């Protein structure tokens, strides 16, 4: 190292900011160069004596700066706010726990969204011949006749009695509509927009159902449905047929007291008069 290079780095040496290699070279230089050594000694001494006393700001300085800082932050531009938000979010994203928790929540959310109801849940809804969905087929009276659906399916036993409410129903078409309740709201809506079948069709259908009951379960079980049809549709073909069938069943069950008024009612009907009289005579001869 020559004197010119030494003078260039002498302050770095005084402030101990040189790397070891250069420091060693400078050390070797001052060991044999008295001029450079005296320069270095003079600078070291100056450094020692020219320490300036520090000055302290007022006690409120920090509070004032922090208060100003709060003011400035409250009106930060949108870009800086966004940068800060990104910085905070990135800091959290770099940690594994929040990332794993976020993934878990995402998986649970996706499962809830993608997994659907089982097909069996939908099979519980049945569509009746009126095209109305019935939520509980075992409980609902699907035709508004007072006959439980279990009878129409032939699932009842012989001790099962007809719905006592059936007698109270009038024959008006409005009674064909099942009562609207909270569970049957959809069905009610559908009923309002769906045209009702004709009264004759309904009577025929119910008569067939009663006959089906008779065929499956015998007269004892069929008397109720026949009576229901008879009372609901008096004077109609189905009503007369139901009256004849009911009388026939009473006769077979040897309940002549109940069969006789029905047969007497049929005597006035041209279609059944002959048969009714013959049946009345047969009952009288017993």
């Amino acid at each position, binding site marked *: 190292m020559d004197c010119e290079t030494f003078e260039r780095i002498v302050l770095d040496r005084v402030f101990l900011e040189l790397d070891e290699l250069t420091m060693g070279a400078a050390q070797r230089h001052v060991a044999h160069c008295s001029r450079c050594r005296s320069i270095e000694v003079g600078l070291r001494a100056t450094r020692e004596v020219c*320490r300036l006393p520090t*000055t302290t700001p007022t006690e409120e300085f920090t509070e004032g700066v922090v208060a100003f800082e709060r003011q*400035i932050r409250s009106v930060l531009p949108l870009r800086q706010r966004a940068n800060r938000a990104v910085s905070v979010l990135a800091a959290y994203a770099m940690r594994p726990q929040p990332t794993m928790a976020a993934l878990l929540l995402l998986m649970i959310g996706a499962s809830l969204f993608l997994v659907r109801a089982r097909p069996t849940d939908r099979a519980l809804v049945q569509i009746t011949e009126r095209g109305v969905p019935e939520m509980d087929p075992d409980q609902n009276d699907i035709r508004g006749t007072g006959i439980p659906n279990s009878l129409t399916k032939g699932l009842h036993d012989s001790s099962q009695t007809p719905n006592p409410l059936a007698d109270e129903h009038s024959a008006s078409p409005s009674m064909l509509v099942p009562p609207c309740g909270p569970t049957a709201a959809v069905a009610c809506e559908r009923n309002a927009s769906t045209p009702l079948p004709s009264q004759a069709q309904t009577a025929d259908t119910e008569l067939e159902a009663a006959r089906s009951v008779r065929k499956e379960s015998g007269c004892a079980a069929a008397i109720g449905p026949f009576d229901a049809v008879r009372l609901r549709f008096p004077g109609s073909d189905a009503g007369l047929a139901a009256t004849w069938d009911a009388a026939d069943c009473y006769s077979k069950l040897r309940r002549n007291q109940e069969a006789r008024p029905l047969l007497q009612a049929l005597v006035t009907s041209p279609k059944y008069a002959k048969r009714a009289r013959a049946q009345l005579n047969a009952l009288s001869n017993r």
Partner: protein
Amino acid sequence: MNRFAENQKEATDEMLMVRYQRGHREAFATLVNRYSVPVYSVGYYLLRSGATADQLARETFLQVVREAATFHLEAQFRTWLFGLLHRIVNEYHLGTPGVQDALTNPAPSNSAEVPGPDSAPPTSSRSVRSQLLARRVASRMSILPFPIREVFLFKQVGQLSLINIAAATGADLDTVRHLMRIAFDRIQDSVADTEEYARALR
């Protein structure tokens, strides 16, 4: 003291700055506490006015707030802070209106009684001599040209290395060495006859 406060106390300047970037205001308060004295002192010796130094220090820290997003963890906070100070002082000298207003119209809150250099009452002849020497150095330094004075103060008060002074002021390292050498030579001339200097030579 809670754990968070202890962490604040032990954290490096750069860690505190990153925490502040993430929204921890306490980190900023800690930084202000750490650097209020050197920043204020440099301002005081640079501008030769307590009130203006107070405003300069305040403006410097507010600049830290405004430019916090530009600070990178790899940078040295001290260098970055004195770089901001250098920029504000230069703008003040160049007559930039906003900076001049900020520094010449001190806030009414706490600038009424701005202290000068801390001076305890002398207790011995040695401390009296030290005070006299410090005054002589301050007096000699105050007549140095501004760039030389700035480099000298960044080194002696701000405790920046020469290379960091170059980074803070935007000058190259050889220029900083040259300015510092001039400052040392001139101050050496003014203190060469003192007993302290003679003792330091030994």
